[in-house]
């Protein structure tokens, strides 16, 4: 299995979502996957543009989670929802 296959990403996402132990490993020993490295670079770039500061040691777990969510979102993004508006609406008060 390739390291950045969907299964590897899924496992890493679950690992991240598990909290403490998994994240502690990533914080101590960064090992970004190829895809996550790109996301990590993007996050750093966005930080400088938006002023949203992301501490260096949080790049790894954050990039891994963002990458996994984007991977999971392919089906959602491919949905053709026609003219359906967002569930949240606003009205004058």
């Amino acid at each position: 299995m390739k390291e950045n296959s969907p299964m590897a990403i899924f496992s890493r996402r679950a690992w991240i979502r598990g909290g403490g132990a998994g994240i502690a490993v990533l914080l101590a020993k960064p090992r970004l996957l190829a895809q996550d490295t790109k996301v990590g670079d993007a996050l750093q770039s966005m930080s400088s543009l938006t002023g949203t500061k992301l501490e260096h040691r949080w790049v790894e777990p954050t990039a891994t989670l963002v990458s996994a969510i984007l991977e999971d979102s392919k089906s959602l993004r491919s949905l053709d929802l026609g003219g359906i508006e967002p569930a949240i609406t606003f009205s004058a008060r």
Partner: protein
Amino acid sequence: MTEELISRPISELAPLLRKRAISPVELFDATLQRIHRLQPKLNSFITITEEKGRQAAIRAEDEIRHGYYRGPLHGIPISIKDLFATRGVRTTAGSRILANWVPDYDATAVAKLHEAGMVMIGKTHMHEFAYGVTSDNPHYGPARNPWDAMRVPGGSSGGSGAAVASSQCAASLASDSGGSIRIPSAVCSVVGLKPTYGRVSRHGAIPLAWSLDHVGPIAKTVEDAAIVLSATAGPDSKDLSSSSRFVPDYQKEMMGDIRGLRVGIPLHFFLDHVDPEIGYAVNRAIRKLEALGMKAVEIDIPGLENCAAMEAHINLAEAASYHEQYLKKQADAYGPGVRTDLEAGRFLLASDYVKSQRARAWLQRNFNDAFGNADVIVSPTVPAFPPVVGQVWVQSGDRREHIVDAFVRFNIPYDLTDLPAISVPCGFGSTGLPIGLQIAGRAFEEATILKVAHAYEQSTEWHLASPALD
């Protein structure tokens, strides 16, 4: 006062309190004694409100003695998830950031419970900022499951589920954004009701995700859940999403006949990747509902496979927005799991958030179509049994998956669609761990799901079992 007495449901305690056969103060003291005995083992509470609770019990006793009986919650020991603002009582949301926050106001639902005469006995343990399903909290330690103290009680309202199941309170006020009421209810063998979005005010509840957050009860029985819902539901000018729809007397409404109602059996998703013992128990429950006169109909709901992604975008983006200032100033005070979620939420695309909200509207339409053919939809509440504390992998039938993915899977659709859903006990696995049956209904038709849940509950004995803790 005997332990047997404090383990009774509100519907049995209330008449005894009303006719002064038992005293609110004695009930409070006996319950408090049980909390002190079980807290080292189960860690169900973050704060125990001993003094304020006793004052409320004394007041209730005095009022009842003078003929001023407020209703079925008068003098009843209730716990409040530590997510809700409580005037003069610290409210941590399970976090270090709010560890010393003492609000000067009550959340609306808490205020309504006070008006109904509850005796607030404590603030229950929870996952940090409600952001998880294990209640394994880096700041307050793990809450534990009364049915097996080695295991998690679910979450995020894990302390509430465990406290009700172990009779450390008669009921608890909790919140649900991805299953946080129903998950602990299922794995602790109690009843958890997530009402329709807007049915109960969210004012004073620390947000997880504004558009997904729901407030509702965890109780020993369906009738008790109906009692607490009746006391807390209704419009609130402080919550713009609260509904002004008429609030029925749910305790009365749930007593009706279920013969002829249609129970929807999903063709896919809701019964996929489920532990065989849980699947068996849910199928047995469906047969029971049929035996009670309901008609089983198969239903199909498109779009459910996108729920996890929709929830991730909405939840993370809204949570990151709420926590923005805390992240800037006190980021190191978060546990690593929640910190990662919040950091990630700051980097998701706005277009994905909006797409998720559009897909949510589409999903609501699909559920509305399904509810054209069914009055309720049933499923397992969770597809797997709770793991031991510290473990995050569960076996959901043919799928080994992370507990978050597993436990929220059947819950998220009803948070995304705002629809009411209740979890009721429907059995135990061979290892003695509880199983929950989820019953969902149309918007603002809480009375219907309560009615079906009550009929099912009264035809079984699962709700009568209690964990051996001594």
